């Protein structure tokens, strides 16, 4: 294994632990928004898509990358907005209560 891969593996494992810890004890009310918010974050694949569609030429990699940019952006934008829409409703309710 190269050092770069090894370093990435460290990052991966440590970030996973952070993920486990950060999501403990969430009231059931928030499970759906949380799932949808986390789903939006998984649209981070857009970064990878941007990187591979970077070269200013036409080849299969760039085309695949551009498709990936569109798909991942839908995931990101749709995910964050829909989560906000859900949470907005909770807020209204809390003000009333």
């Amino acid at each position, binding site marked *: 294994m190269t050092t770069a891969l090894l370093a990435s593996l460290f990052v991966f494992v440590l970030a996973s632990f952070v993920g486990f810890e950060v999501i403990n004890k969430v009231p059931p*009310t*928030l499970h759906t928004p949380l799932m949808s918010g986390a789903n939006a974050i998984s649209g981070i694949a857009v970064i990878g898509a941007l990187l591979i569609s970077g070269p200013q030429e036409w080849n299969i990699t760039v085309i695949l990358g551009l498709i990936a940019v569109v798909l991942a952006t839908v995931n990101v934008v749709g995910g964050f907005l829909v989560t906000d829409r859900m949470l907005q409703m909770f807020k209204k309710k809390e003000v009333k209560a």
Partner: protein
Amino acid sequence: MSEFLPTGIELSYLVAASLFILGLKKLGSPATARQGNLWAAVGMLLAVVATLLDRQVLNYQMILVGLAIGSGIGVIAAYKVQMTDMPQMVGLLNGLGGAASALVAIGEFWRLLNSGEPVSLDATITIILGVLIGGVTLTGSFVAFAKLQGLLPGAPMTFPLQQPVNALLLISFLVASGYLIVTPENISVFLGLVGISLVLGVLFVLPIGGGDMPVVISLLNSYSGLAASAAGFVVMNNMLIIAGALVGASGIILTQIMCKAMNRSLTSVLFGAFGGGGTSAVAGAGGSGNQDKTVKSIDPEEGAMMLGYARSVVIVPGYGMAVAQAQHTVRELADQLEKLGVEVKYAIHPVAGRMPGHMNVLLAEANVPYPQLYDMDDINPQFEETDVALVIGANDVVNPAARSDAASPIYGMPILEVDRAKHAIVIKRGMSTGFAGVDNDLFYKDKTMMLFGSAKDVVAQLVSEVKQL
């Protein structure tokens, strides 16, 4: 690759990753959830802008077009979607994320092949993982979407020799992977791997019943994170790896919480083919036992009298209410009852609706006051003092068989103990079974009245009858 990136970009990634972590943390508490979502979104924006400044990103025109198209579709989808369709929406978005990760892995493989340099072992393995997880997430999410949307039957779909076929596919995937590692330039083997990944995703979700879809979506959410992480390994980018790992880990936690709420182990969800062929014998036996029993059905006028003259009413909303878009009418009914001095509470089962917390979202949409919502553990001791429990389009979550019948497939699942209330009124379209495909003894009890009809119509009739009391 990353060593060429200017420090600024890396530092922006660090800030973005921190924003994701803080955002997820804040999403876990009602008071800060919205802010948390905003923080995560800002993190994402920062990461995207930083990446656009990357030296190897030159293709601005096309990329901006791509970002614009994606944002446009995302905005429209987010504002058009009905709150009831939220599980499908998450499933669909998930699939797109998985697809993007898989495409990144495929695209990078292509680039490496044509770069003239030998493809390294590390690169091949990470690319294979990216294709596998991304592909499974893509087709698995789409099948889950189709099931929830009713495009595919919700019942588990099994076919003969399913297990051997799955095993065969997995083995051929491993063999082909080994082959690709030795001879990376073999395009057809690579495409074969892509194909097998996609088929595996379909086969993975098809045998899982509609009732277990929330768990599957949550698990696929976790996969989409792992897919992004795998894509991160492919292009050696820490931002992707961190964000993907966060989502992967949080998705697994959420999946566990959901399984606990349904008292099902993850393995039985994934491999049990619950509610279909495997349990038809049990369901059949229960069904025949109930054939001689009769149900009492009443009309809305009688229902309104029962409700109006009760001291306390507990409303148990289920997915049926959500499908009928009856949440606003239900709230109107509750308001009318309160005018008559009836104490109204809502009992929310952890998996009411199709995802944990889904029902809370729907009731929030209808402006139901927060203090009236009760979790299962809080409301169950109160049922004995409840005059009328009004069950609207819920089935499995109020089935007493979960408590009493060890042979029932839902035995052990925590339920709302509606049968302990003095009376129960069940609004339902017909006598069909719920997602779990099990008959419900509650409907045959003496103190249970059935009110047949679409939730929205029936509740609207109740409202007008209650007004006349």
